[in-house]
């Protein structure tokens, strides 16, 4: 699915060239601020910037130095809210003690300048006062011992929590001291230490995760409010933030894991084979019995006894396979085979549909090129129709709906199967819910197919009136499929998964505009290329162009409508029922 992400840009750069940079800039900043769950890309360069804000909040509130704030945040897994909650609940002393932050009352931490010698408790040597370091906790040891201690701990991979050497002292050592001492002897280890500290923001933070791209793009993604969402990294990979596999909503992560596993080992097929076939004693291919007689012959020519699997000629002859007593288990075997057969058919039903939609999705995405050509043909014609963004918008609506549709089948397989929710609902309840869901699924399916069919037409040869007709069709069907998708998600979230009592399944919410593309962090938003990509995508996610066509009288230039709708788009991401980019009349009509 990654390839769609990257090829989006081609289409859009050709479509939307007219947008000037200033507007993009403006829309972009709008983009970042007004959304509920805006995802951010954190690159190697912006990693420090990304944690700066959290550090700053803690430093300001508790008037701490940076390394103390970082120690606190690492301990509380960068959950600033939780940190503040503990502060209110248990008080500052407890908050600090738990995290191993000790702050001495006296400011004179730097005792290394004192001239007298002292005894280091570790190497039991007399050391000059200039050769010892006193930590914030007040414990004082010689620099050599400290350094050795730090090196051992960094090599053990414990960079983030290096404790003081004193017995029962849980204070975390000052990172500046560690850096200073270690870099004198092992600059590479000091570097490693710094990296560990920086990357703690990703490793220990449940709102930030590495992008799962292979080979790794070096980015991490930060979400703001909801872990259950799907994002697109700036490298183009779309993935489920929660489980880091490909985007799979409306399947829950658990369902998706089971489904992919099932598809991978084709366990049902294996099941069927073991029940219905026996290996030929000669060529070892599985042989299915298609007649009544228990003397079976394989296509390799070998005949064998179905009951015991033994080859004829040795144990039996053509004329006689008598002497077996397997018959007494026959009834049991029949039951087993029936169940296996039923399960397999059920799996095949869902898998076939899932597969069919996935295949259609692949084929339709090839449409992209032909559609692009057709649009180019239309544009080259001397016509008063100029804006064809509705074509691409419709096409993207088709892709998104198709995706939701295909993943709704594995969802249904598990929702109404016996694997996961056997104890959650009675058979009657299940039947009612299944009908409800299937009705919606069916409606969505029908409309998606209609929409798909529209795009098959050779519309670049159409007359203007025909094109106007087609445009109306595309717009209507887009709204309908969008609404139906939303309804299906609502049904899943409230009626099906929401009603579960014993287990909790969460799915990424429906995103009418497609999977959210993570934006660069403000600090890292410095390259023009990145900006452009984001903006092209921003426009892709609106139906901006369509407004103008529904209202031929015009609500301004396409630039304006595109821009204004972009601003509204972001507020819409919470998932209101209708596509806000379309005028009310159009929605009412449906």
């Amino acid at each position, binding site marked *: 699915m990654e390839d769609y992400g990257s090829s989006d840009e081609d289409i859009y750069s050709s479509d939307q060239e007219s947008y000037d940079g200033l507007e993009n800039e403006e829309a972009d900043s709008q983009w970042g601020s007004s959304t509920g769950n805006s995802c951010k890309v954190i690159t190697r360069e912006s990693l420090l910037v990304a944690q700066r804000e959290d550090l700053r909040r803690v430093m300001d509130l508790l008037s701490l130095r940076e390394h103390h704030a970082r120690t606190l945040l690492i301990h509380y897994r960068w959950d600033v809210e939780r940190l503040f909650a503990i502060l209110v609940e248990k008080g500052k002393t407890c908050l600090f003690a738990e995290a191993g932050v000790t702050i001495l009352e006296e400011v004179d931490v730097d005792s290394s300048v004192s001239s007298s010698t002292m005894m280091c408790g*570790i*190497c039991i*040597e007399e050391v000059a006062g200039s050769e010892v370091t006193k930590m914030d906790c007040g414990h004082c040891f010689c620099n050599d*011992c400290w350094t*050795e201690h730090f090196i*051992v701990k960094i090599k053990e991979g414990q960079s983030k929590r290096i404790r003081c*050497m*004193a*017995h029962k*002292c849980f204070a975390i050592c000052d990172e500046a001291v560690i850096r200073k001492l270690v870099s004198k002897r092992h600059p590479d280890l000091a570097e490693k230490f710094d990296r560990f500290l920086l990357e703690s923001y990703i490793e220990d933070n449940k709102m930030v995760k590495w992008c799962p791209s292979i080979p790794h793009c070096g980015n991490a993604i930060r979400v703001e409010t909801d872990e259950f969402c799907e994002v697109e990294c700036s490298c183009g990979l779309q993935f489920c933030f929660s489980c880091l596999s490909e985007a799979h909503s409306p399947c829950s992560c658990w369902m998706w894991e089971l489904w992919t596993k099932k598809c991978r080992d084709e366990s049902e097929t294996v099941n069927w084979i073991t029940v219905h076939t026996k290996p030929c004693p000669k060529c070892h291919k599985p042989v299915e019995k298609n007649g009544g007689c228990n003397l079976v012959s394989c296509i390799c020519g070998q005949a064998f006894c179905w009951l015991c699997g033994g080859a004829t000629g040795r144990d039996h002859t053509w004329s006689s396979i008598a002497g077996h007593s397997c018959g007494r288990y026959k009834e049991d075997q029949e039951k087993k085979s029936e169940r296996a057969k039923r399960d397999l058919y059920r799996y095949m039903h869902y898998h076939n549909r899932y597969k069919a939609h996935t295949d259609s999705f692949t084929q339709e995405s090839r449409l992209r090129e032909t559609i692009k050509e057709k649009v180019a043909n239309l544009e080259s014609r001397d016509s008063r129709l100029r804006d064809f963004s509705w074509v691409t918008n419709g096409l993207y609506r088709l892709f998104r709906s198709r995706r939701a549709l295909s993943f709704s089948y594995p969802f249904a397989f598990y929702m109404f199967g016996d694997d996961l929710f056997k104890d959650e609902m009675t058979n009657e309840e299940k039947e009612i819910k299944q009908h409800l869901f299937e009705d919606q699924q069916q409606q969505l399916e029908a409309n998606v197919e209609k929409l798909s069919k529209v795009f098959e037409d050779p519309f670049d040869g159409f007359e203007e009136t025909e094109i106007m007709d087609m445009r109306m069709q595309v717009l209507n069907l887009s709204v309908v499929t969008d609404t139906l998708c939303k309804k299906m998600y609502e049904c899943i979230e409230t009626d099906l998964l929401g009603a579960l009592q014993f287990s909790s399944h969460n799915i990424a919410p429906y995103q009418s505009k497609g999977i959210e593309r993570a934006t660069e962090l403000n600090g890292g938003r410095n390259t023009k290329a990145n900006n452009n990509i984001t903006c092209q995508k921003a426009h892709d996610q609106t139906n901006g162009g369509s407004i103008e066509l529904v209202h031929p009288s015009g609500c301004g230039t396409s630039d304006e409508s595109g821009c204004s709708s972009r601003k509204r788009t972001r507020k819409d991401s919470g998932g209101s029922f209708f596509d806000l980019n379309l005028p009310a009349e159009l929605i009412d009509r449906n």
Partner: protein
Amino acid sequence: MQASRARLFKEYKEVQREKTADPDIQLVCDDSNIFKWTALVKGPSETPYDGGVFQLAFSVPEQYPLQPPQVRFLTKIFHPNVHFKTGEICLDILKNAWSPAWTLQSVCRAIIALMAHPEADSPLNCDSGNLLRSGDIRGYQSMARMYTRLAAMPKKG
């Protein structure tokens, strides 16, 4: 390497000087290898180990004192936190709670404290741990005393 040797040498001198300071502990360094030590510790009074003398073997790593020494009982002992067969000791300060400020001498003291206060919830010797956990103090004490007599006391006659 050099640091650990220097530190052990310091500890050795300290032990020689303070020989009589703690009569319950007798710490001896191997003649040829400063990284191998043995200790004789007296079983604490008012415990089933009272009257016994237990031998401990120390194996000191090159990273010492940044990493803890490996210690095990050479004398058989019935104790929830000591492996009955190998003599391995389950004690937090010998694992993740180690601090370089500890010395071999203080480790011995910690082990004596462990003998007096067994931790039944993380047993290496399950039989012993189960006796304590089920509240059968008498059973545990008589078993421990028996093994003390058998293994940790000089044979009479």
